[in-house]
């Protein structure tokens, strides 16, 4: 894969252990293992624990996945159930495919 050389830094914002959060984390892990094996890191931030962090990344919706690196910064909101959209959002797959 062409993008294998890149390093992916992902942050997942959740608020407590809601079904949506759990689903999102599960989905994310699955996609990463499939497409970004070895070159990704996931940081899970629970806003109920650290509410002040919400401001920095302009988090509104929960759950939100933020791709900080590589640029550009993208946010994917929702439980990440739509694999194709997530992959486009993470620039893993080009949007036209």
């Amino acid at each position, binding site marked *: 894969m062409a993008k294998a050389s890149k390093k992916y830094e992902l942050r997942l914002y959740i*608020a407590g252990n809601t079904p*949506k959060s759990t689903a999102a984390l599960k989905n994310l892990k699955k996609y990463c293992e499939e497409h970004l094996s070895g070159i990704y890191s996931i940081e899970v931030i629970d*806003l109920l624990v650290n509410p002040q962090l919400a401001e920095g990344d302009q988090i509104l919706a929960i759950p939100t996945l933020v791709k900080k690196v590589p640029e*550009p910064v*993208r*946010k*994917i909101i*929702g439980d990440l159930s739509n694999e194709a*959209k997530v992959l486009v959002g993470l620039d893993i797959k080009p949007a036209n495919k």
Partner: protein
Amino acid sequence: MAKIIKDKSANLRGKQLKKSPTGITGFDEITLGGLPKGRPSLVCGGPGSGKTLFGIEFIVNGAIKYDEPGVIIAFEEKSEELTTNVASLGFDLDRLQKENKIKVDYVHVDKSEIEETGEYDLSGLFIRLSHAVDSIKAKRVVLDTIENLFSSLSNEGILRSEIRRLFQWLKDKGLTAIITGEKGIATLTRQGLEEYVSDCVIVLDHRVQNHVSTRFLRVIKYRGTMHGTNEYPFLIDREGFSVLPITSLELSHDVSNEKISSGIVSLDEMLDEGKGFFRGSSILISGTAGTGKTSIAASFANATCLRKERCLFFAFEESPQQIIRNMKSIGMDLQSHIDKDLLRFHPSRPTIHGLEMHLVEIHKRIIEFKPHTIILDPITNLVTIGTVSEVKSMLMRLIEYLQSNQVSVLFTALTSTASSSEQTDEGVSSLVDAWITVRDLESNGERNRGLYIMKSRGMRHSNQVREFVITNEGLELVDVYLGAKGVLIGSAREAQQLEEATGEELRTYAGSRTDRQIQRKRTVLEAQITSLKEEFESIEEELGNTRREEQLRKEIMERNRKEITEGRYINMKSKRNKQDGKGK
């Protein structure tokens, strides 16, 4: 009205809706206390109608005046932008943020950065809000403008349910909130937010009439309380937001018996007791162009300042410098009053803003300066920005306001020569307490000013026309000549006065001549008397002499007879003796 309702429900007071004062001038009066406490209120209006400012002022006043910290969640402007924007109104958001009285949180959603996949909720927003609220123990919240979410997030179903949840959450937390919304085409807000906020809805609007824009505020709905329902004009100026309640509920205010001078002694003398107008009354000076209305107004101002009272002069026609210069020429030094801050000019072009705005402006200046007297010169120019009835209603409210504050007011009004001088163009003559008309009286090829008192409520006043003259020393009223030849004014009056003076002189002269004649006659008479007396005395003396002569002669004759008689006796004796001797 409000009072009666309050009295009736005195026992219910504890259960009544609690209100959160906004600190916005006038708004708390309309809503009888402010926004509903612990509930969200919707403020909507078109672009540039002042929604954001309303919200910010609510928060800032809460933090400064009412000790209720507040949170501003800004969806449109960054906090730095907000800070800059409101700094011009004297709000220091940065300082308030540092003092933990206010928290501004800028929520930015960029659609291009966001991909939506599957289910989500807005807990992030909730968490941010609740974090902000908890960190400063906020009591007030402004969401400006939550509708922006609709443009950045596409799942409307989720948004709507989340917004509903948000408002419920705000209520549960007991936060007094303002939600701003952009005006929609057929609805109050574009996204129909009004269906979620049902407690209090305020609409802001600005309309352009005759190229003049006026802002209006209206409380559409306010559950659980009474409120003013009219459209109230409001003003955004360097002190922020101020709303003006148009109509006060009652027509009752204290009145004063104190009189204040008009600054023209001879005008005061035309009024009862010669002391001038009542304090707190409204005086109208009407007249055609160039009759000296402004001069009368200025002398009223001058008199006020000379009493060490404050006067506020609204000049709609001339600049202050011009007025000061012109009044100097008739012996009034207004500059010295300005230096002592007893006199303030507030010049403004009538067309600078709408009529209502002028009223708000006047109110504000009055509250600021607390004058004893205000002058509006002239009110005629206000008609250019409103209809006659609008001007009348504005002035009526102004008079009402001024009277309740015991402020005397003097209006000047220009009457056009064509219209009857019994009616001013603004139709305010019935509203005022005293009305003075200055009219051009044209006769014998010259124009003179005649001054009448048309009415003066509550005091006797002269019904005479006076001639009004402007001299280097000030204004003066001269008695017009009323006589067999009719009313004479101007040079005709002067000629008549001269003629009278001449007649007087002649009469005096004639009088003195008679006096002298009498004097002379007396002298002559007295001389005659003396001579007659002397004559009498000489006659008397003569007569006395004659009498004495007569007496003398009588005595002498008596003596002579006696002597003769005696002589005869002796003779007879001797004869007898001779005869005796012979016979023996």
